[in-house]
């Protein structure tokens, strides 16, 4: 199932120049390299411009939560060379307690919303992002739902409800209905 990954010309040299190393081949055959967060911008810049195959499109940016390990958040960058359709996957860990990693918006405009989503869902701090704010959840939301320690049911939905409608006193629509005979004591 796992076959030998084919490396397009120039890829190995550029990854090595940024101090990255290749990870074991995955079933999809996309070459995967891991770099330090500090060398991320250099590597993505080199992959975008060449020499060799140019990966000009950033397809996706997202995080994987390795809770409870540290460093916790593993960022994945999918790049694609439009001339051949080849892809490369770059991975880097976010650094520090506040999960910092340099933003790549300067290199690829498309990273803007993808990084906002990763911030919204996991709380990764992309330094240098022009406008890092929530995108899918409401602006006043306090949690990061895609973290592994966040339950599927959600946390404190009524708190959010109260914040949005301060006049309402009766709590939330998520509250469980009171059963008869329980309130007597």
């Amino acid at each position: 199932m796992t076959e030998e990954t084919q490396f397009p010309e120039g890829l190995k040299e550029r990854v090595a120049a940024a101090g990255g190393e290749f990870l074991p081949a995955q079933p999809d055959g996309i070459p995967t390299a891991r770099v330090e967060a500090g060398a991320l911008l250099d590597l993505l810049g080199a992959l975008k411009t060449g020499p060799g195959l140019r990966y000009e499109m950033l397809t996706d940016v997202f995080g994987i939560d390795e809770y409870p390990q540290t460093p916790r958040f593993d960022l994945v960058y999918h790049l694609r060379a439009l001339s051949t359709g080849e892809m490369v996957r770059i991975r880097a860990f976010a650094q520090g307690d506040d999960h910092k990693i340099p933003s790549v918006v300067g290199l690829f405009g498309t990273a803007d919303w993808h990084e906002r989503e990763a911030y919204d869902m996991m709380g990764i701090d992309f330094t240098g992002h022009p406008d890092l704010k929530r995108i899918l959840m409401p602006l006043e939301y306090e949690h990061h739902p895609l973290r592994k320690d966040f339950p599927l049911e959600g946390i404190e939905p009524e708190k959010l409800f109260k914040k949005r409608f301060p006049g309402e006193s009766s709590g939330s629509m998520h509250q469980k209905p009171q059963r008869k005979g329980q309130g007597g004591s």
Partner: protein
Amino acid sequence: MTEMDKAINAPDAGAAPDAESARDTEPGDFGVEQTTLYMGPQHPATHGVLQIILTLEGEKIVRAEPVVGFLHRGKEKHGEELNYTQYITFTDRLDYCSSMANNIGYALAVENLLGIECTERCQYFRVIIAELTRIASHLIWLGTSAIDLGAITIYFYTFKEREDIYDIFDQITGLRMNNMFVRFGGMGGDIRPDVADRIRKFTDDFPKTLDTCETLLTRNRIWWQRTRDVAVISKEDAIDLGLTGPNLRGSGVEYDLRKDNPYLCYDEIDFDVPYGEEGDAYDRYLVRMEEMRQSVRIIRQAIDAMPEGPVFTDEARKYILPPKNRVYESMEELIHQFKIVTDLRLPVGQVYKATEVPKGELGFFIDSRGGQSAYRMRIRSPSFTNLQALPKMAEGRLLADMTSIIGSLDFVMGEVDR
């Protein structure tokens, strides 16, 4: 005397503006005062619950900021909780205009992880289904974007044809929408000969409707003025913003996953991929119209070249629920069903599979750690990325162009918000 009266009685009030400066002013430019207009989330032209915060100078758009997330259902989070078979239904509801194309993309990712490949007949079957959904999705786009710009007739032509496609789906799968018909390593059933004939008849009839729509729009003066040189996005910007699908090809980038990263049996089928030049709304319109014609070509070839044989491999039977009546009668099938429901585990590995759905590149990244559900399920949705181009397209245009821009981007909020 109030301020207003003072202004009226001022000596030069009401004097004709000097002819030279009047000519310099752009139409719609009424001074520098800025207004903020909230368009949506309940607006008929935003095609779903999209809100756009517009900063206007008179009628001119200075800045447009899309606000998304009103339809967020936590699909990626659910992918980490539900098992792989259950999750197929969640992919249906991403882009609900092309449910089965999403199913196919997800199934391909899981199959890659399992190391199984579907049979040749199944591959042709999937291509037919994917192209039928492409036509259905483009028809919705054509009808709604035309009705937004005032061309009501088109809507009825396109929705009649779309109904035909949904009838075909009904005959194949038993459901019109959200079909959930794709299984790992196969399909939920086969194409009956009478349905195959019906699809052939559709490929004969459909181009005529397309001709009618083209007669009404392609050289229509109003359509030209509403779409030509509107929502222009250059080749470089399109790549930088990560646009995919017809939006990218409309700007002249020759990139289509069906050609460049062939999956299923697309490399055995002869078809062309249309490209635009200017990158405006009109080019994207032409690209999508031609794509529908090419889809008809693909369907025609696929249905004629479809080989006989099973839709499942024996290998794939391990991952597919047995028919319900057999479960009641046979002990083995009961055990089989129990195993699938309670203990379907995927091998460890990370997989990214991208397919060309009507809106662009839909990719599924599955990080499997050997459990019953994914450790991380990432959906790379084309609409989310394509919507990022909206501020760039809207800048400096008139407010009335907004419907044209939204229409030409062709996004679905179910996929943007996930």
